[in-house]
Each structure stands twice: as structure tokens, then as C-alpha cells.
């Protein structure tokens, strides 16, 4: 078992961000697809809901999630019944919170990519005998690969940088919900500036590498070819 607190915070952060990104890709892709193909008036409403975490202050989101996850409210109780564990202040809570908080960062790039792709190639696929799932995996995915990478990276990076929401619903419990961003804050509060600088530095470098990777992938001429 890892005992170094900073390393523990790193592992917790990686697990949280990794799981969040995975869930967001699984849930966000059909949502983005649905939004891209939707033509009704309701599209605007759903888009607004998806974009909400972009404008909502994290502390507000954190507070309402805290209420929702608490053992005194319905969602919290349902979770307790289903899993036997309390939802609030658990690792699951910060994953769920992160999924909601980073949702637009994954859904929006995917939606744009699907919209840009249009219908013409999909119609071609259909008359060549491809089912909708077939068309998705063999036409859509290869042509929107770069956007998927962007969406995953943005979702991951955004989750790593999260503070207010995780603090509120996670409770900053070492080894379980104390993530890097909070660990950094704790060091600052305890006047451990050296450690704080170290953590901040590594977070900065890590983010830069990640962003550079994204831009590198998007720059390559092998990315989505315009049809």
C-alpha cells in the first residue's frame, strides 16, 4: 500500500480522472450523437443543460450535489440501498460529481465533430449495406478520431484540475477523496510551500505535456480528412 500522501493523492486523482473520462466517453458519445442529429426545438434546451457546468460556479454545483448525495435525500438513500455504502464523501461521489462537471468538455467537441461530418457519407454507407452501428464504427469513428482524443483529453485534464466540487462532496479524505488539487491547497494552508511548489510544478508540467499532445495530434495531416 502506498503511504506517501502526495503519491496517494496522485493515484486517487488518476483513478478519479481515468474513470470519469471512461464513463464520459461511454455516456457522452451517444448524447453528442443524439444532439448532432436532433432537429427539434428541444435540442437547444438539452444543449443548455449540458453546457450548464461551464457557467455554474463549482461551489454551487458542489453544494447541490452534496445535498443530493447526502443520506438524508432520495438519491443518496437509493444508492445506499443498492450498494450498501453511503454515497456522500465516497470515491463514487467524486466520480459522479466529476462526470457532471466535465460533461460539456467531452460532449461539445464530439457534437461538433459529428455535425461537421454530416449525413452524406453515412447515406453512402447505408446504401452499401452498413447498419447504423456498422456505420458508426467504420465511418464515424475513424473520421472523428482526433475529436475523440481531444474530448477525452479535455475531460481528463478538466477533472484533474477540479477543486471546489470535489472538496465539497468528497470531504478531502486522504487516500479516498483527497485529490492533487486539494493536496496542493492543504500544503499551502499548512505553509508547506516547498511541497506546494513541487505539486504545482508537476501539475503544470503534466498539463502542458497533455495539451501539447492534443495539439500535436490535431496538427498531423493524418487527422480527419475533409470529405
Amino acid at each position, binding site marked *: 500500500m502506498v503511504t506517501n500522501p502526495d503519491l496517494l493523492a496522485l493515484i486517487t486523482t488518476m483513478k478519479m480522472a*481515468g*474513470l470519469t473520462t471512461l464513463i464520459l466517453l461511454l455516456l457522452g458519445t451517444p448524447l453528442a450523437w443524439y444532439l448532432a442529429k436532433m432537429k427539434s426545438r428541444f435540442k437547444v434546451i438539452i444543449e443548455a443543460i449540458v453546457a450548464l457546468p461551464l457557467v455554474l460556479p463549482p461551489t454551487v454545483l458542489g453544494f447541490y450535489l452534496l445535498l443530493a448525495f447526502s*443520506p*438524508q435525500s432520495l438519491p443518496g438513500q437509493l444508492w445506499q440501498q443498492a450498494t450498501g455504502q*453511503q454515497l456522500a464523501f465516497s470515491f463514487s461521489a467524486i466520480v459522479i460529481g466529476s462526470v457532471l462537471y466535465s460533461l460539456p468538455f467531452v460532449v461539445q467537441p464530439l457534437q461538433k465533430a459529428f455535425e461537421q461530418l454530416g449525413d452524406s457519407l453515412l447515406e453512402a454507407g447505408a446504401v452499401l449495406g452498413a447498419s447504423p452501428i456498422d456505420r458508426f464504427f467504420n465511418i464515424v469513428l475513424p473520421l472523428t*478520431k482526433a475529436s475523440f482524443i481531444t474530448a477525452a483529453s479535455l475531460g481528463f485534464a478538466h477533472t484533474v484540475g477540479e477543486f471546489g466540487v470535489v472538496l465539497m462532496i468528497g*470531504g478531502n*479524505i486522504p487516500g479516498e477523496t483527497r485529490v492533487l488539487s486539494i493536496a496542493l491547497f492543504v500544503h499551502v*494552508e499548512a505553509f508547506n510551500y516547498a511541497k506546494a511548489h513541487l505539486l504545482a510544478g508537476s501539475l503544470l508540467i503534466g498539463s502542458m505535456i497533455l495539451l501539447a499532445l492534443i495539439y500535436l495530434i490535431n496538427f498531423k495531416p493524418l487527422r480527419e480528412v475533409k470529405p
Partner: protein
Amino acid sequence: MTLFLGVLLVLLIIFPHQANASQKPLRIAVSSNFSVVLQTLADEFNQKHQSNIQLISGSTGALFQQLRHGAPFDMFFAADSIRPRKLEALDMIVANSRITYAQGNLALYSASKAKIDQETIKHYSARLAIANPNNAPYGKAAKQCLISLGLWDKYQNKLIIGSNINQTFQQIRSQSVELGIVAFSQILQNNITNFLLLPSSCYQKVNQQLVIMKKSKHIKLAKKFSHFITSSEIYVRLNKLGYYNGILTLQQAVSPSKID
């Protein structure tokens, strides 16, 4: 792509996460301003008793909200007595566990001015930093003090409100604000020499209280720790750190009549 996801999945499963209850440490939620002191005391206690005490610091308000909604903390060291009382009223604490563990004092502090004395506050007209009087106990006390000294009207619109006393302290220390009211314990902890103690008759001392949460799995240990913190030995040490009445021995004490 699938390979990457596969590796990610495996990593997520390998690293064990939740330890079982008996191995879990005693978790104490502590208000930020007392966390450094408490860490020292907790470390000593851990050494002596082979225990594992973990501190989670934050603002009293936020910690209170979390406790209300099921946060798994065993003890709560608040910066005031209001929140502990509320938890008691909600029947969430071990009976009779609410007790004062420290009493805070206020001091005027500047990192930029040459020397603070009684005249300083009469002539000073720029912005004044205090903690949030609505939810930070030291801020509340600061407001009381300003009102009782008849200075509230003067500074009301020139306040820089910190979300907690630590933030206020940082603001002054970094010289982004010239002057402010902080906890005396912070003065002593940071070896500040340029300060002015505020007369204790001008405000209600900040009674910092602790409680033991009912659903804790370490109640016995918590009680032990509570006794330790409120012991006379610790009282003396806290005195020297600026809590309780330890201040009266210092030279920079001032009588209220000298102000106005």
C-alpha cells in the same frame, strides 16, 4: 485505442482503494486556523499512543455542511461554538462531548507599515482586512471589536473580506492589504513583531469548541484525544501560542482607554 482503454481499466482495478474500517485512521475535521497547531499536537499524541490521527482542514462552515450530510469525520474542531451547538441540536454528537479547546484573541497586523501603535488606527484610512463577519468566527469578533471601538462606520465600506482568517492573514502578509485584524495565535505562530493586541473587552472571545461525532467508530480514542487537548499541560502550551489569557504577559498589551 482499445489497448489504451484496456490498460487504463486494469490499472483502475489493481490499485486498492478502500481500507477496512478498523484500519481507518481517526479523522478530525479542523478549522483552518487551528490546523497547524493541531497537527503538532496530533503528531505527539500519535507518537505516544501509536495511534493514527488524520486531519482534514477547511472552513468551519464548509466542514459543518459536510458533517450534516454524512461526512465520515470522527471529531470536529470548529473555530466557533455555534456550529458545534448546531450539531448537538441535531443530535449528531456523543453526549457531553462538546467542549472548548481554545479561546482566540484578536490582533491588528501589518506587514508593510513601519510600526503599529494606538495612533495607527486613528490615522489609517485605507482598506482594512478582516475575515468574513458572517461566517468566520474571527471575522465576527473583528466586527464586534470595530463596532465597540466606534470604528465600524469608518471602515464599513473599506473592508477586504477574507473567506477565512487564514486568507485574511495571507492577504496582509503578502502586502496586498496594508492593515487588518487577525488571530493573535497567527501572530505568534509566524513570529510577527509588528502587531497590536486588541482590547479583549471590545469583543467576545472566540470560543473554539470540539465535538465527537456519534457515528464515529473510534469514540474511545476520540475521548482520549479530547481529554488530551483540554488537559492543563496543553492549556499552558496553547497559552504561549496566543490562546486563552496568555497575552497579558506580553509588552505590547494595551488598555482600551488608550484608543479613541
